[in-house]
């Protein structure tokens, strides 16, 4: 019973987390290319 709510909840919450993660990783790649390798990490 109520599986439709369960599926919508899981898809939106986990999907949202996935989309956010993908956006962060993409942003990291784009920005990294504009920064010389020795300056890419705060701590080494």
């Amino acid at each position, binding site marked *: 019973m109520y599986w439709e709510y369960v599926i919508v909840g899981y898809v939106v*919450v986990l999907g949202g987390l996935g989309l956010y993660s993908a956006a962060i990783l993409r942003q*990291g790649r784009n920005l*990294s290319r*504009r920064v010389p390798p020795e*300056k890419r*990490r705060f701590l080494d």
Partner: protein
Amino acid sequence: MTTTNSSPTAPKPSDDDPLAKPLAPAHTGSALTFRLGLAAAIFMGAMLVFGLVISGPEINQRDSARLLYIHLPSVAATYLGFLVTLVGSVIYLRTKSLFWDMLAGASAEIGVVFCAGLLFSGAVWGKPTWGVYWQWDPRLTSTAVMFVMYLGYLALRRMDLPPDVRSRRAAILGIASFANVIVVHYSVQWWRGLHQGRTLGVDTQIDGLMLFSLFLGLVAFVLTFAWLLVHRFRVAWLSHQVEELGLARALAERRAETDPTGRGRTP
């Protein structure tokens, strides 16, 4: 997310320098994030299997109770996110270290993402359980206010002011906003509302498999939080570097303009 392969464009460290370290790759991954991400994925998968397949429906709430396996972990990750923001803000005000400022900002953003998740999963849980998506109950209302407050904190971090002024004000707001997190947590005890109190009380009968699914969800979400935090922190650091490089370039151009011989040009 491979970590051992260095980027093909990055120059290899020369062999005659024993102290040379492998250069950072052109993304925000590392051995740490690889392990964190792998562990998070494993626990997330286990939570899905146990929460959606193995554990049975709850007696009163039926299958909608399965939403609690993502709802309560979202709550934990949200609290954790705003707590790290509080700690980062306090230490930033004491040390003025950029690290803590960036950590506070990164953590708040991830906390807001989890907070959106907790509000959504709570709403779709409420519809079958209470009959409505939203109740004007103290915990729900204070959570919604907390969500908007931290959106305001993130907006404040984008103000066009000198970075040190902006960081200091953000730190003050990051500390002050945590008061609302405490209000959210104790709202159930302070006002007797509709929202159920502590889910894991002694008197609540909770099936062993359900408890285990919930535990898997908690670990999965906390690991996901940590994995995202490292990546988001590195993005913050990289955008800071890009800003600095842009400033340096603008400065060099200005120097070249005012010095026609080009001697003032930065190497």
